């Protein structure tokens, strides 16, 4: 038997429902929320700020420091032991490299930009979700960037190439008897949408060359959809504020004054746009 219907009834190239919002953490210099299916990521950017210990400073340009953290209660099964682990350190490092290629910190010698990615809920694809959130947060912090970075996991489940795997698909042998682990692969990919450069490529599992190439092509097709949602989230932040201001009913503190009307409009508006963009992926490739 082949995997001819996905666990959650999605199409093989279909992404999970995505929600994105910029500027969710008031104290941070830039922040974002990104949700892919049941995976939720918050990213907070602090800085550029002074870097200590001093030996880490780079007098030529500022450095980027990413911290990926899964919250103890976030996993799909066992409690995640809090604190840095081998896994979270690796993901922090690869996320940092995925993001730093687009970032220009030449104006900030000896300084650091800290990105904290927190995952309160995960269902596979957490590093991709984290990178997507972090890219929005970095742009929100007003840093100079060549482009955003968008990420998605592609892979193979029982000889079928699929996009945006969830936890069941990633661990298919545990859920379906006849599938053995040789036919499951999970490939997180991050790309710069405008140029198609790949800034993150990892693989867990086994695939043959054809399946890998097919998976990468599918990732390249899904990236523009994600990028469009990220862009929309950043723009929505201003339209939300504009809406409040034009209604003339906002308090002096635009963001925290979530009074009935304006709050509702700002929340529903992005949701509408996002469902549009996920459905009509084809139109959005130029975005």
């Amino acid at each position, binding site marked *: 038997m082949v995997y001819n219907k996905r666990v959650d009834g999605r199409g093989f190239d279909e992404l999970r429902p995505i929600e994105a919002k910029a500027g969710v953490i008031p104290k941070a210099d830039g922040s974002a929320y990104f949700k892919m299916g049941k995976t939720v990521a918050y990213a907070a950017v602090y800085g550029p700020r002074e870097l200590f210990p001093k030996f880490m400073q780079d007098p030529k340009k500022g450095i980027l420091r990413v911290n990926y953290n899964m919250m103890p209660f976030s996993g799909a099964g066992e409690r995640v032991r809090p604190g840095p682990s081998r896994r979270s350190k690796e993901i922090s490092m690869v996320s940092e490299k995925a993001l730093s290629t687009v970032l220009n910190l030449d104006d900030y*010698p000896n*300084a650091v930009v800290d990105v904290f990615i927190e995952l309160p809920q995960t269902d596979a694809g957490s590093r991709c979700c984290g990178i997507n959130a972090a890219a929005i947060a970095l742009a929100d912090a007003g840093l*100079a960037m060549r482009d*955003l970075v968008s990420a998605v996991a592609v892979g193979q489940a029982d000889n079928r190439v699929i996009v945006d795997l969830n936890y069941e698909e990633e661990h298919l042998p545990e859920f379906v008897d006849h599938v053995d682990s040789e036919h499951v692969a999970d490939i997180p990919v991050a790309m710069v949408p405008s140029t198609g450069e790949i800034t993150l490529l990892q693989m867990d599992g086994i695939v043959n060359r054809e399946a890998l190439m097919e998976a990468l092509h599918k990732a390249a097709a899904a990236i523009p959809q994600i990028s469009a949602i990220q862009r929309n989230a950043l*723009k929505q932040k*201003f339209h939300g504020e*504009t809406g409040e*201001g034009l209604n003339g009913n906002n308090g002096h*503190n635009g963001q925290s004054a979530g009074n009935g009307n304006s709050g509702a409009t700002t929340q529903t508006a992005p949701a509408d746009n996002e469902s549009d963009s996920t459905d009509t992926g084809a139109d959005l490739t130029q975005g």
Partner: protein
Amino acid sequence: MTILVQDKEVVVPGDTLAEGMGYIPGYGSYRQATKIIASRLGLVNVEGKVLKIIPVSGKYLPKRNDIVIGKVIDILMMGWRVEINSPYQAMLSSKETPEFIEKNEDLTRYFNLDEYLVAKITNVTSQNLVDLSVRDQGLRKLKGGRIIYVNTHKVPRIIGKKGSMVTMIKQATGCRIIVGQNGLIWVDGEPAKENIAVETIMKIESESHYSGLTERIKTFLEEKTGVKLDMTGEKGDYNGLQ
């Protein structure tokens, strides 16, 4: 040669602003082959053939001749270290004060820890080492009043054209106000009036991106204070220092 955005439109890093060689990339944008692409989050400004981006967020980067408000965080042999709401700390040398300070004199007599001061940036190096001076008119220690933080990129709106906005708030509330380019604002006056001034500044900060701001702020102030404002008169100094 086509332009793909309108003036004042919000753009995100990676957005294509124009195609063809007819436009020139300005601040916050770059050219890739024949396209001009945004590299910052902000509002597009079309100035003839130059496309630039006015940023809306980000930390303050020290610039020479800026008036800033800072907090003394350390006292050294020959001066003070000042926090100026930027990634880099500033140095105020004891030679840059209006009065002559003897060697080995107790520097806390002039500026003590945790005190705020208004100073001018005299020099910024390539590594962003910042020098300050308080040897100009209006530059001094800030006693009393309160300090508020605003977005650095909204400071020009709070000051207004030739200081018109800050002068208006001062006239209406009778408060003394100093606006630092680094996003720190000092407000000192009667407590109730101080509140109105702070509220007005917050309002400007959150509504700065629509037209008719001055008019709206004027009516807001007149409503709150009951003072009839006449803005035809003389305008104040740039940062409200006079």
